[in-house]
């Protein structure tokens, strides 16, 4: 950010490109796409292929954005894995079981996410307990609450809800019969988060907090409010995915959602965010999410054993982190050619 405005001159420089955080993720994406395009053929490169991986990318991508921001600021959020089923349960319960208007269900579901995020943020900022532990504890508690209340109020672990056409159109529709409308929502989230991280001053605050929390506070940054806000953003995003799932599949389940925990972290890391905080970009996270989704879905088009996909993702992750490590030291130690 700062380096870009300081150097001013838009001179093309290999060093400058190599030290951008998203370079590695872009190379990874290109290699992975080519690999599966060769194996999967025209079906993978056509609309069925694109819709299949974009649908997956949209769901995990919406969550990966705030999780990435949190990781840039040096924190973790494991609880997203329990917010997804909790919010979809809340939405289905309000609108399906109690037959309240869809808007109430949506607001309730999103409210659950915001509340859980607020609790996370509050505990993280008021105590010295690492956020990994705080959000694991909150995850367990929310899982128990979701299951307990579902069985108590509904007597079953799943609730069905048939949304009205308008709600379905905005949150659960398949465009052209294939592309889930969440893809558009994902694009919207990307735009908002891009603005927040790379244009607004909040973005600089997030980077500063990830670099050194103490100095950031001394520089006058409201670190507590930013941290709580970020946790609320990740709760909101996970809740949004949960609500959209109800509208798409017309059912909410207490289980499920666990996969989002590690999947979102993997997208973020493949996207070049350093786990230790202080570095990363929205474009990188989007590229990482796409790479993850292409491997995840491409494997079916390539007629390979689906389990090979896990091996590829593991290898990709290792390559990504090791090369990010290199890129980052390159970036930090980089001095422009001329003094």
């Amino acid at each position, binding site marked *: 950010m700062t380096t870009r405005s300081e150097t001013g001159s838009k001179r093309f420089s290999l060093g400058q490109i190599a030290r951008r955080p998203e370079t590695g993720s872009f190379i990874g994406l290109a290699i992975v796409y080519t690999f599966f395009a060769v194996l999967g053929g025209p079906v993978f490169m056509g609309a069925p292929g694109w819709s299949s991986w974009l649908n997956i990318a949209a769901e995990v991508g919406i969550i990966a954005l705030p999780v990435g921001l949190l990781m840039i600021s040096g924190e973790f959020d*494991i609880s997203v894995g329990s917010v997804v089923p909790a919010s979809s349960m809340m939405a289905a319960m309000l609108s399906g079981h109690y037959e309240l208007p869809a808007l109430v269900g949506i607001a309730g579901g999103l409210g659950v996410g915001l509340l859980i995020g607020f609790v996370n943020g509050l*505990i993280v900022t008021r*105590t*010295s*307990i*690492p956020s*990994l*532990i*705080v959000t*694991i*504890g*909150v*995850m*367990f*508690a*929310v*899982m*128990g*609450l979701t*299951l*307990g209340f579902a*069985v*108590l109020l509904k007597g079953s672990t799943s609730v069905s809800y048939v949304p009205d056409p308008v709600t379905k159109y905005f949150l659960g529709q398949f465009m052209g019969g294939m592309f889930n409308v969440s893809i558009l929502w994902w694009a919207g989230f990307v735009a908002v988060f891009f603005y927040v991280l790379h244009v607004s001053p909040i973005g600089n605050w997030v980077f500063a907090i990830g670099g050194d929390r103490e100095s950031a506070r001394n520089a006058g940054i409201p670190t507590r409010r930013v941290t709580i806000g970020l946790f609320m953003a990740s709760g909101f995003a996970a809740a949004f995915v949960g609500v959209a799932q109800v509208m798409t599949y017309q059912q909410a389940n207490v289980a499920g959602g*666990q996969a989002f925990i*590690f999947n979102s*972290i*993997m997208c973020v*890391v493949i996207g070049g965010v350093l*786990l*230790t905080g202080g570095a990363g970009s929205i474009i990188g996270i989007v590229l990482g999410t796409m790479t993850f989704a292409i491997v995840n879905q491409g494997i079916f088009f390539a007629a390979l*054993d689906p*389990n*090979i*996909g*896990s*091996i*590829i*993702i*593991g*290898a990709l*992750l*290792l390559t990504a*982190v*090791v090369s*990010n*490590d290199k890129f980052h030291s390159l970036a930090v130690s980089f001095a422009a050619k001329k003094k």
Partner: protein
Amino acid sequence: MDMIAGFLRRPAAASMLSLVGVLVFYGAFAGADLGQLANAASWLNYAARIGIVAIPVGLLMISGEIDISIGAMIPAGAMTTAIISGYYELPMVFGIVGALGIGVLVGLVNGILAVRTNVPTLIITLATLVAMQGIVLAGSKLLTGSASVPLKSPGWAKTMFGNLMFGGSHQVVIIWWVIFAVAFWFVLHRTKYGNWVFAMGGDKESARNAGIPVNRMTILLFVLTATSAAFVGMCHAILFNSAQVSGGMNDIFNIIVSVVVGGVLLTGGFGSVPGVFVGALTFAIVIKGIDFTDINRNWANLIIGIMLLLAVALNENFRKLALNYAGKKK
């Protein structure tokens, strides 16, 4: 008074209090018959399953690192044993050596990556977790054509690793858990290696400057966590006469929670083996003991979550107490 203060400063204090708290809660408010609970095997078996892995994971966390690949290593150990000794019908010894070998190998990979790069170990082991899951599943499909492999083990292997004891349903892994706990207690609290582990968790750079072989110790600890997870998987394959590729994912969080409830500081430098032992016991009593109470078992996770946060908060305060404590008299 001094005794109480001394107890509270120990890393195991919060886990002991959690255990007592859970027992009181279950016994007094939830109508659990504690006598019946004491005789039941379900929670002890479960405690042993997570406890054997929790102890080395605790050591690793004391040294400031974390290992989540254990979630893939439990099924990996089970599958390796079953494929070698069940599917290929090689002698049991090869199955056991194979399972432990896989553990050593993955531990080496984790450890070497941890010391050679600056990548946080959470991410390194997340990568090996995902990769090992794929390798175990794909390997099993490739070699045996199925995701579940039967295993018939000879009598001695059954006796050592997969028996039920006391004529009831207590598994022999409970004994192994106690052996592991005593061995690791001795290493951590009575040998210089234990001091090294604490020193590494306190400040890696200073530890290295003090002449501690930090890299070798880190690799060794990763080998221990992966191998003990593979060991648990192997015992289960021998006990249940078969191995499935699934399972093990929940164990990741369960084991980390046990360790943290056991008073280990995630950032390193603080913790104890007795604490982790009690932590695993407490976790198992909450999860499995709830069946003996009037509480619907669906609420078990809520109790775990609250207990974790309370225990950690207590630990924080006790640790401050320990760090600020100066003896009463000058």
